């Protein structure tokens, strides 16, 4: 069977199955079962079984349930309320301050967990109604929540970064750390945009006098900073231990869970039920994600065995496109497809196709896959089918989906502008991973 039949046939089959709303893991199982049967016959069944086993026992992927458990414990620990109060105090007397609090809070939450849907849902239920009640513009408030939530898969710890790194076979630790500077830069870009918008259109936010009548703005700024320190402890337990070389990413995920438990105890919220519930949530969410990984891994092996990935790479070389055009094309394709397809499904299809091209062009793996991670994050924000949009919609059912769609676009373009920045200045992504050293 020629390589292009395998490649185009399998992608077409996958798209049809997904469009028919078949569960993603089932679509991959059907695709891979068919591929194995056609290419190897029944003698390939052992390969099929072993590809599932090897993924299901991959040590690197143990970080996924642990990061989810850590986020669940933190959401229940009372840390969120403390962070919100402290940031609310620190932002002070600025018109549109709740927009700024929202973005900063999301960035901090991103440094503690890393699930955009969870943060969009959390802020959509807590901060969003409060902002609307105070007279903040509904659409712009929704936009800042969506923008803030989109930071979470970029700023480590991030489940999505672990999955991208595992699928692309790059260092998980470096991939996580690579997200720090882009996350901070994007936070800064969002803040600048919000301040400029409110400056030129003051009606987007209520008058400061009406906005500031809140006891949370009392107390010293130093005290507010001090109250945030315990939450930084959890960040240190994950990223600090990785950067210091004390723990591997998987071990750091476990120490992060321990840090979250200690933090919950510090806020006097720790109880057995909470920890058990967190482990249950971790098992449910992780099983859904990792089952897709287990079902899909065989796809890359099929592409490799048939020579499809290698031949596609050779064709790309013959095209003699410049590196910049190639990077643009490789990121534009998922940018469009993520609007319609699941992030993980598309990731698992594109990784085996992209890997030989990355090698041929000599792109830095961490740089490229971090850009890809950001594109995937944008996918959660882009209408019509971004997950994060629906998470906010379900948290605020009275807000029309069209308003949420409109709210997301300015921030999609800001992230896209940020991606150009990170593409042209790779050090923004690579500086911290390089400081980490070769391992």
């Amino acid at each position: 069977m020629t390589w292009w039949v395998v490649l185009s046939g399998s992608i077409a089959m996958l798209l049809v199955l997904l469009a028919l709303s078949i569960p993603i893991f089932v679509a991959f199982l059907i695709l891979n079962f068919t591929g194995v049967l056609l290419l190897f016959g029944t003698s390939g069944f052992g390969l099929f079984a072993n590809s599932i086993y090897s993924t299901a026992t991959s040590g690197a992927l143990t970080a996924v349930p642990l990061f989810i458990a850590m986020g669940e414990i933190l959401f229940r620990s009372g840390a969120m309320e403390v962070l919100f109060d402290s940031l609310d105090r620190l932002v002070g007397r600025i018109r549109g301050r709740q927009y700024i609090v929202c973005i900063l809070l999301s960035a901090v939450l991103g440094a503690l967990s890393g699930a955009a849907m969870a943060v969009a849902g959390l802020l959509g239920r807590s901060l969003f109604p409060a902002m609307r009640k105070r007279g903040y513009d509904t659409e712009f408030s929704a936009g800042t929540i969506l923008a803030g939530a989109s930071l979470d898969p970029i700023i480590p710890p991030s489940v999505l970064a672990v999955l991208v790194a595992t699928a692309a076979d790059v260092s998980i630790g470096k991939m996580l750390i690579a997200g720090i500077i882009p996350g901070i830069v994007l936070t800064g870009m969002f803040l600048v945009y919000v301040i400029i918008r409110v400056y030129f259109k003051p009606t987007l936010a209520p008058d400061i006098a009406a906005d500031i009548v809140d006891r949370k703005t009392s107390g010293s700024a130093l005290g507010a900073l001090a109250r945030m320190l315990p939450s930084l402890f959890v960040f240190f337990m994950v990223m600090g231990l990785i950067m210091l070389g004390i723990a591997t990413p998987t071990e750091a995920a476990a120490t992060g869970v321990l840090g979250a438990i200690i933090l919950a105890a510090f806020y006097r919220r720790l109880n057995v039920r909470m920890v058990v519930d967190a482990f249950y949530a971790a098992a449910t969410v992780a099983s859904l994600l990792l089952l897709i990984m287990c079902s899909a891994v065989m796809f890359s092996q099929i592409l490799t065995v048939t020579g499809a990935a290698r031949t596609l790479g050779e064709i790309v070389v013959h095209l003699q496109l410049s590196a910049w055009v190639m990077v643009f094309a490789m990121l534009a394709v998922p940018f469009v497809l993520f609007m319609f397809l699941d992030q993980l499904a598309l990731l698992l299809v594109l990784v085996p196709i992209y890997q030989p091209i990355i090698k041929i062009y000599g792109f830095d793996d961490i740089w490229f896959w971090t850009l890809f991670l950001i594109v995937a994050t944008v996918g959660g924000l882009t209408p019509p089918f971004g997950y994060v949009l629906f998470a906010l919609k379900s948290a605020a059912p009275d807000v029309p989906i069209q308003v949420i769609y409109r709210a997301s676009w300015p921030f999609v373009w800001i992230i896209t502008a940020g991606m150009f920045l990170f593409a042209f200045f790779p050090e923004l992504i690579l500086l911290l991973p390089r400081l980490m050293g070769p391992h």
Partner: protein
Amino acid sequence: MELLYRIHDRITVAGLAGGAASVALIAGCFWYEVVARYFFNAPTSWAYDVASFALCPTIFLSVPEMTRRNAHVVVSYLVDGMPDHIRAPLSKLLLLACAVICLVAAWITGAETWRQYVRGVETITAIPILKWWVSIFIPYGLLNTSLHFWRQLAGVAPTIPIEQGGLS
């Protein structure tokens, strides 16, 4: 039949408890490893392997319950927009496809696990163990998942609120 369904549901729910316990085991292994290595200078040879093995039951003990809850990640916008007279039979057809492929996958992985059992295949780890001790969870998860799809197809699945999983 009702009794069988109830037993099946209880096994499935118990499986999820096993999955959650496996997450705790993963965390415990890594905590032990970090403490042993940095406080007692005595790294273990088993912690990483046990944690890796525990991932398998985390996934495949939990997945049947996710199927019972109808929580698998799907891209449903095209089918949602279809008229009822097309959508209903299509949904049945898709459930059938799900049930069959999971059953086939359970059979393939079960055959491989049986081969490992018969031949006494061991894991390639610092402390080898019998491979089927770990791989047995895969056919269990797929078979149980298939049974839930069959029950949904037959219209005898419990009504549980639909949840959508998602990555981001």
